[in-house]
């Protein structure tokens, strides 16, 4: 395998991982607050189609991203209402959200299928940084949304582990009753992070329709939302782990295609299975008692919080 192909595989892994990364960062925040949202795929699709329509009509991808955020957040709000206020089963509500998002996005996007986008995002080589051997062309010769995701990862890591708000967030996911008794508004925090989670999923979807493809196709995410859900566990609810995890998960497909062009045949079924095998392994690890402490996985994940049942 020569040098150029090696660089190309790594650079593709970054682009392929970015939509998964955004969605996974959103789901990390949501799950850190103790809410499981399996509707990532649906929120991504609604974000992808709304972002695409706006970007097409305004010829500005940034407006597309903005609307994708709002659309993803709006869909997540349904989940928040159902699971936080009405205390419905989070798994059922999340699954319903995925089906809802798939249907809704197909309906909204019917007349936009396959249309080319006049002004998608473009690659911008960062001066200086992009000249560093290997790292430059892989990480710093990308589009603006990739650069934004680097900043976001750092910001979310800082927020989660180094700030008071982050402490509140983790407390609500760990033990909402205790947090509540300390004066932290558990309901409000859960609402906020579920909606932010939806916004980030919306961006992840819009990245596909505004840069990666860039075009709208029904079900454009093709299962990437589910990979993001698996990635959250793989990343042990840590934004920094999500960064390299998403490149690993995203890069697997790209690697498979490259290997085929080099006449190396690895079963694609095996490659498609890999992210989930990794996830299962991590799941087994995180159930160990001492690991739970170290990782700090949200203990109240999936449980509705009811003040009266305290």
């Amino acid at each position: 395998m020569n040098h150029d192909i090696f660089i190309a595989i790594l650079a593709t892994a970054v682009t392929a991982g970015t939509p998964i990364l955004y969605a996974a960062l959103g789901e990390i925040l949501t799950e850190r607050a103790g809410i499981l949202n399996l509707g990532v795929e649906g929120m991504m699709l609604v974000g992808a189609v709304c972002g695409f329509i706006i970007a097409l009509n305004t010829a500005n991808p940034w407006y597309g991203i903005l609307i994708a955020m709002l659309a993803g957040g709006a869909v997540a709000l349904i989940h928040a209402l159902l699971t936080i206020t009405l205390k419905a089963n989070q798994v059922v509500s999340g699954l319903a959200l995925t089906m809802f998002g798939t249907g809704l996005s197909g309906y909204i996007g019917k007349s936009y299928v396959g249309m080319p986008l006049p002004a998608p995002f473009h690659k911008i080589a960062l001066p200086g940084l992009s000249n560093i051997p290997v790292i430059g062309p892989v990480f710093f010769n990308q589009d603006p949304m990739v650069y934004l995701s680097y900043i976001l990862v750092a910001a979310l890591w800082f927020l989660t582990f180094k700030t008071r708000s982050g402490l509140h967030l983790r407390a609500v996911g760990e033990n909402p009753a205790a947090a509540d008794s300390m004066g932290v508004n558990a309901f409000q925090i859960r609402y906020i992070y579920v909606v932010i989670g939806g916004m980030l999923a919306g961006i992840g979807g819009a990245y596909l329709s505004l840069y990666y493809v860039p075009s709208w196709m029904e079900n454009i995410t093709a299962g990437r939302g589910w990979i993001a859900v698996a990635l959250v566990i793989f990343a042990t609810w840590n934004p920094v782990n999500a960064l390299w995890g998403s490149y690993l998960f995203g890069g697997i497909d790209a690697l498979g295609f490259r290997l085929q062009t080099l006449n190396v045949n690895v079963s694609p079924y095996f490659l498609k299975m890999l992210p989930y095998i990794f996830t299962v392994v991590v799941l087994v690890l995180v159930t160990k008692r001492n690991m739970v402490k170290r990782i700090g996985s949200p203990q109240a994940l999936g449980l509705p919080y009811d003040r009266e049942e305290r």
Partner: protein
Amino acid sequence: MKKFSSKIILAFAALLMVALLTAGCGGSKTENKTAGQSGEPEKLKVGFVYIGPVDDNGWTTAHDQGRKYLEEKLPYVETSYVENVPENPADAERVITQLAEEGNKVIFTTSFGYMDPTINVAKKYPDVIFLHCSGYKNDKNVAAYFGRMYQARYLSGIAAGKATKSNLIGYVAAFPIPEVIRGINAFTLGVQKVNPDAKVKVVWTHTWIDAAAEKDAAVALLDSGADVIAQHQDSPGPQQAAEAVGKFGVGYNSDMGKMAPKAVLTSPVWNWGPFYVQIVQAIKEGKFDSTPKCGSLTYWPGLKDGIIGLAPYGPMVSEETKQLIEQEKQRIISGEWDVFTGPIKDQQGQVKVPDGQKLSDNDMLNMDWFVQGVEGSTK
């Protein structure tokens, strides 16, 4: 207790939502023209079952255009359709039965997975004639049909062979099944007709439609030196990948030139209308016979019948190339020659079709080997 029951109600509400939404996306729509007015002879009702939405710009749109053409050409025909029908036996049988109950005398089921449901329902409605697309099972009142898409792929291969400068053409392909392998082989024979040195490199995506993955596969091929990208995929992703780096491509299913105008040389496309008219006329005249004549298929029409063809050429295709393609097209239409006429060798250089012989329909329908000039594996 009150809390408990309200939770149950919520769970049910959520479930109901799921059920409604599933019905929403898998829902059916029937478009019935007003029935014949009094005095007019009773119309022949023809029903269609579709796998996707009628505006998918691909497979289902092509069938639906055929339906519209049928209704336009034969005034005594009245059509209806049901779109987004899942391939599982329960849904497919329900929809096909419903169409039969509504008085349709001819029913087209247009996806591979409807094969067994069609056969099953047909047993209960012996007076109704069923036509199933792309399968291999027939019955007294069920005929399997498909189109010789490989002929159009051969023609598009000529355009690709003329366009390549690096002598490497990439082919993004869905699944290693006979239909796709046959298309790759025919395309490669077209390429080599005009450019014996050119090779066709295949990457399997293992998905019919995933625009992002298809694009990645195309990029991998472009990076390995390909300068024309052909595809057996449903999204324009590979064509857009070629356009992004100033290379060429050959689309599929519909005129993908609309989605990547600077790249697409042409696209092999379906045109079911003439065949649908032909078959419904035959049924009306009582000439229907479901005996398989082309391998396991009752009908396997091709270029001659006008059911497949090439979408309009892009501006980069030269007059000379267009003329050459037209010549080859006429040669196939006349019946003197077909794509898989020997001598044809496989990847290992073994003669698979001896000089002057034509591959039988049955061998074409079960093709599991690549011709010489294809780089890739059929597994």
